[in-house]
């Protein structure tokens, strides 16, 4: 169960959501899309087109060229928490895990034809079946659970149909859970009516996922939820938690330190399934950027300070603005000209 905290304007989280669904199409998995905001049909029409191999190699060359420059210039850069001797900006392009997508084009319908997909669009469901009894949970969540469970048992994802030879995976995507459109008021009041609806929903969903061959990505507008206790509980109930913080409209947008990036990625929790240890990667501070065709997530690194003749005043401005940023970014001011103080 992967849950993504949405960024303020929902721009980038919907991108990740579409990536997840597009990957499902390319791998031949079944899809289940639920939303209260946009009709799933329109979401599915906007999936990015997968990049074919030749195009990918071209991009790969671009990336490696950039990488070697980085190696020569920046060997030691002090940043938020620790010094690192060597850096790789993006994970090596030689590993072929998953596919890359071209954001400037939408997926062609032929690719989409063989895929079996199911959708849940809340306003439609409400009009089709005006009253459904769901006990002790927000009715929209209850309906969604019933719908997911029905699909799982009908299509045999939970192994209940032994005749079905070919096993497939169901990718479930739920957009903007917890927002007002789902009938839950945790986003607008400090003391919501039913504080346990969302957590109960997640628990039952977790049970469904564990019992069947499915994976689920949920996006939640975490910045709107006032009661932080709920967010903590939701985090405990999920396997993987990723937060996206975009720089749009915040003071970080104009900060020269962040000029190459569009936002930060916070990996708050990683799954620890079936083993005592978890695979904690080395990269802890990640940022994302939207290039013309690609959405990439890279390790946050400062652009090398190439100009030797930077005047004192601008250095101080930089230091001043770095101090304004919250939590320990002060190290960056020391950073680039590392012999400077």
């Amino acid at each position, binding site marked *: 169960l992967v849950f993504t905290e949405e960024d303020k304007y929902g721009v980038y989280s919907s991108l990740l959501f579409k990536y997840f669904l597009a990957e499902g199409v390319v791998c031949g998995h079944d899809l289940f899309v639920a939303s209260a905001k946009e009709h799933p049909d329109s979401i599915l029409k906007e999936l990015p087109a997968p990049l074919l191999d030749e195009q990918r190699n071209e991009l790969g060359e671009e990336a490696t060229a950039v990488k070697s420059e980085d190696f020569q210039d920046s060997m030691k850069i002090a940043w938020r928490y620790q010094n690192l001797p060597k850096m790789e900006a993006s994970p090596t392009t030689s590993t072929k895990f998953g596919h890359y997508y071209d954001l400037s084009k939408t997926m062609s319908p032929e690719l989409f034809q063989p895929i079996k997909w199911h959708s849940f669009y809340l306003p439609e469901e409400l009009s089709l079946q005006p009253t459904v009894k769901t006990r002790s949970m927000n009715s929209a969540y209850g309906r969604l659970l019933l719908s997911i469970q029905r699909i799982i048992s009908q299509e045999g994802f939970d192994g209940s149909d032994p005749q079905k030879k070919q096993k497939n995976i169901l990718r479930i995507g739920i957009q903007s859970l917890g927002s007002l459109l789902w009938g839950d008021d945790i986003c607008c009041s400090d003391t919501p009516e039913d504080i346990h609806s969302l957590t109960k929903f997640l628990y039952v969903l977790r049970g469904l996922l564990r019992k069947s061959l499915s994976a689920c990505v949920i996006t939640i507008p975490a910045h709107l939820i006032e009661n932080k206790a709920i967010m903590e509980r939701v985090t405990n109930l999920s396997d993987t938690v990723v937060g996206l913080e975009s720089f749009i409209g915040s003071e970080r947008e104009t900060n020269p330190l962040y000029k190459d990036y569009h936002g930060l990625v916070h990996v708050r929790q990683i799954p620890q399934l079936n083993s005592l*240890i978890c695979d904690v990667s080395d990269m802890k501070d990640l940022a994302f950027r939207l290039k013309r065709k690609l959405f990439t997530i890279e390790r946050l690194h400062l652009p090398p300070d190439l100009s030797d003749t930077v005047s004192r005043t601008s250095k101080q401005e930089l230091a001043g603005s770095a101090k304004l940023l919250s939590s320990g970014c002060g190290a960056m001011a020391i950073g680039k000209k590392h012999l400077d103080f």
Partner: protein
Amino acid sequence: QGKFTLLRDTRTDGSFLVHHFLSFYLRAGCKVCFVALLQSFSHYNIIAQKLGVSLTAAKERGQLVFLEGLKSCLDLWFGEQEEQSVQPSPLQFISKSTSDLKALFDFVQVSLTPASSDSWKGPVLLVDDLSVLLSLGATPVAVLDFIHYCRVVVCSQLKGNIVVLVHSNEDSEDEENELVVNSLCHHSDLILWVEGLATGFCKDIHGQIKITRRVSLELTGEQDVVQIYQYKIQDKNVTFFARGLSAAVL
């Protein structure tokens, strides 16, 4: 005998302790009732096999009573046909409006009360993890009552042990959770507090464990004994070492 151990984790995952206690008690020949709320049976089974214990075998010979919370909840939620089933679900508080955990307690009591044919050594109740009960709608008072009843039956009457895992955070905004955790801390005989390192992430040291033996509860005028170690988790094992003596430093 008759001890209540509290496992507490902050900023990190303390479930390796749960796996340890599970295999430890099973190997010692105790009858274990495991209330597993967060993960599926196969997850625990796979890890227990790495530690040398088979949960399926233990279940078959009756040594282990396993309540798989996720599965039980699904049966409760989607099993509308069985309203009048023989055994009411232990997790029925989720769907009913009563917020007490009596059904869960009854389940524990029934599983751990020794039958005449049992030859196991003392009963053990293991809970992973208590904070989930709050997420599912139980009030903090109900959770504390449940633990209290369990203590009376398991620790005093049956002379068994209880091990419970809770999550907590120092600057947590989840007041209900903090209430439960603080209250349990006062009543525990042994507290194992697992924390992520305050200085941030480190590859060689996964965290720090603080062991508090609550000797002060025995009213002999002694203070609690506190020991602090750091640990690193490996695939089949956890190594503990004194602070500052990790392999990375030496």
